[in-house]
């Protein structure tokens, strides 16, 4: 598997080192965290990869996820929804499951697969240890469901792990607000109504962020 991996990754050399697999909920309750998360990743000039991009109903979701994990040097796993929010609600297993696939990929692959790095996010610092004791003593970051804290944790992690030069967390957080205002103003001019903007497909939202950042830098 090592040689196969190396060959595959050498073809994707350019993108592998910039790809970030995003493993988080994609429901409306997570949008307040997801949008600043995507903005931060893109501001740092990485490429977020999500399971729903170029979604093909004929393709098994798991194989798509495995492909994204193989193609991404970095990954961000938010396991903060491991606890159900109300009685009777089932807790979410997708995120811990995909975290396991990612860690397995890193452990059992040769070559560049061993360079893979992941950031695990939780709401509270030590809560995960009760649900996922195999990960005890791991360096997990907490965001407290606070978008600004999440921006800070993600930005600081990339700076540490990839020796990245980056704007301050505060600057990224403030830029996100300017983007949001431009986004709403511009898209409303184009005929997007409130619900269209709130429930916009993630891949479309990503393309708007890229467009905006290109305008800032260009």
């Amino acid at each position, binding site marked *: 598997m090592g040689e196969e991996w190396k060959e595959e990754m050498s073809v994707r050399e350019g993108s592998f080192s910039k790809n970030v697999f995003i493993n988080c909920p994609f429901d409306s309750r997570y949008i*307040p*965290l997801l*949008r*600043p998360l995507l903005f931060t990743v893109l501001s740092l000039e990485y490429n977020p990869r999500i399971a729903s991009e170029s979604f093909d109903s004929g393709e098994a979701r798991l194989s798509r996820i495995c492909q994204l994990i193989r193609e991404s040097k970095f990954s961000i796993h938010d396991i903060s929804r491991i606890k159900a929010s109300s009685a009777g609600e089932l807790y979410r297993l997708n995120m811990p499951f995909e975290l396991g696939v990612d860690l397995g990929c890193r452990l059992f692959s040769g070559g560049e697969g061993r360079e893979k790095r992941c950031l695990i996010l939780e709401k509270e610092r030590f809560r995960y240890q009760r649900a996922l004791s195999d990960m005890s003593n791991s360096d997990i970051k907490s965001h407290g469901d*606070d*978008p*600004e*804290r999440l921006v800070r944790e993600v930005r600081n992690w990339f700076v540490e792990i990839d020796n990245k030069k980056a704007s301050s967390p*505060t600057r990224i*957080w*403030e830029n*996100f*607000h*300017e983007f*949001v*205002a*431009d*986004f*709403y*103003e*511009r898209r409303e001019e184009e005929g997007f109504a409130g619900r269209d903007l709130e429930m916009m497909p993630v891949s479309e939202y990503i393309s*708007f962020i890229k*467009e*905006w950042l*290109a*305008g*800032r830098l*260009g």
Partner: protein
Amino acid sequence: MAIAKKTGSAGKRVHVISREKGWAVKSEGTARAYRIYSRKDAAVKGARKLSKARDVVVHRRDGSIQKWEKSGRKK
């Protein structure tokens, strides 16, 4: 495609932004926030004073837009 350039947005708005220890008032195009207020309503008042002929955009804690005041008239 450059949205920010196309709309000519640089410097045209004042934002009220959630910060860890309060609410920041920040003009677009400036490097630093004008001031941090402990209360949001005080920050909105501060933003209005600073705005002059510019829009004031009041954000929620997650960055989404709570209120957009266009040069004195509410949107």
